[in-house]
């Protein structure tokens, strides 16, 4: 390949993109593995199913210091159809655990909203444990633009 101006530019951009991706991947993966481990601990080894849980997060968070997160689980909240607890993880934070909500029949509805800290763009994961032992999860990616003027 001849070293033209166009080639050089293309190559440098590609290399730079690769380097950035690489640098971002490593710590995220380490924490993602932690998150995976903690999910397994929470569920007692059961693989979480899809559905029932819905996690509501902004697609883009301008300020990673306060990101509103709300989670709701479909349930009658009576008898055996009861959500016992919902755990929230952020797989790119220095420590993935965020919060654990515990519900009772008195909750009426399995729904909770809070504000969380996100270190960078990452997945937020909610895992719900029902009274009958079944587990469900939902996952949403949140883009974090710290110090940027979002739009």
């Amino acid at each position, binding site marked *: 390949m001849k070293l033209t101006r166009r080639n050089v530019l293309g190559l440098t951009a590609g290399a730079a993109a690769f380097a950035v991706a690489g640098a971002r991947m490593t710590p995220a993966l380490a924490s993602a593995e932690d998150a995976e481990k903690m999910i397994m601990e929470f569920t007692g080894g059961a693989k979480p199913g899809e559905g029932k849980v819905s996690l509501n997060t902004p697609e883009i968070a301008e300020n990673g*210091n306060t990101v509103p997160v709300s989670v709701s689980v479909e349930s009658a909240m009576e008898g055996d159809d009861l959500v016992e607890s919902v755990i929230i993880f952020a797989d790119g934070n220095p420590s993935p*655990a965020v919060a654990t909500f*515990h519900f009772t029949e008195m909750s009426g509805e399995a729904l909770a909203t*809070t504000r969380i*800290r996100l270190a960078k763009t990452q997945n937020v994961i909610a895992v719900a444990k029902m009274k009958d032992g079944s587990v469900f999860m939902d996952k949403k990616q949140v883009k974090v633009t710290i110090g940027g003027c979002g739009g």
Partner: protein
Amino acid sequence: MASKPRIKVPKSASAGEVITIKTLISHEMESGQRKDKDGNPIPRQIINKFTCTFEGQKVFECDLDPAISANPYFEFNAKVPASGTFKFTWLDDNGSVYEAEAPIEVK
């Protein structure tokens, strides 16, 4: 550290109605990840547990980790079987307990 908590509970409800409660407490929620000017880590000090009870019955509980934002805010639901009082407690890492109450009347 923490100031008087702010709570929003409707004044009245019909029996068995599911209401929404909002709470906010001022707290630094020092994560333990930050360092001071000399590079020494600032020790963690957060609220680690929040509970809401209605007449002694547990309604909602949350275990907090350092990833919860400063001034922890919660919004959740509660079933109101009869007139009574909601009690809220926040437990601090340093052993302090912050408390608040809100009455509700069933019409």
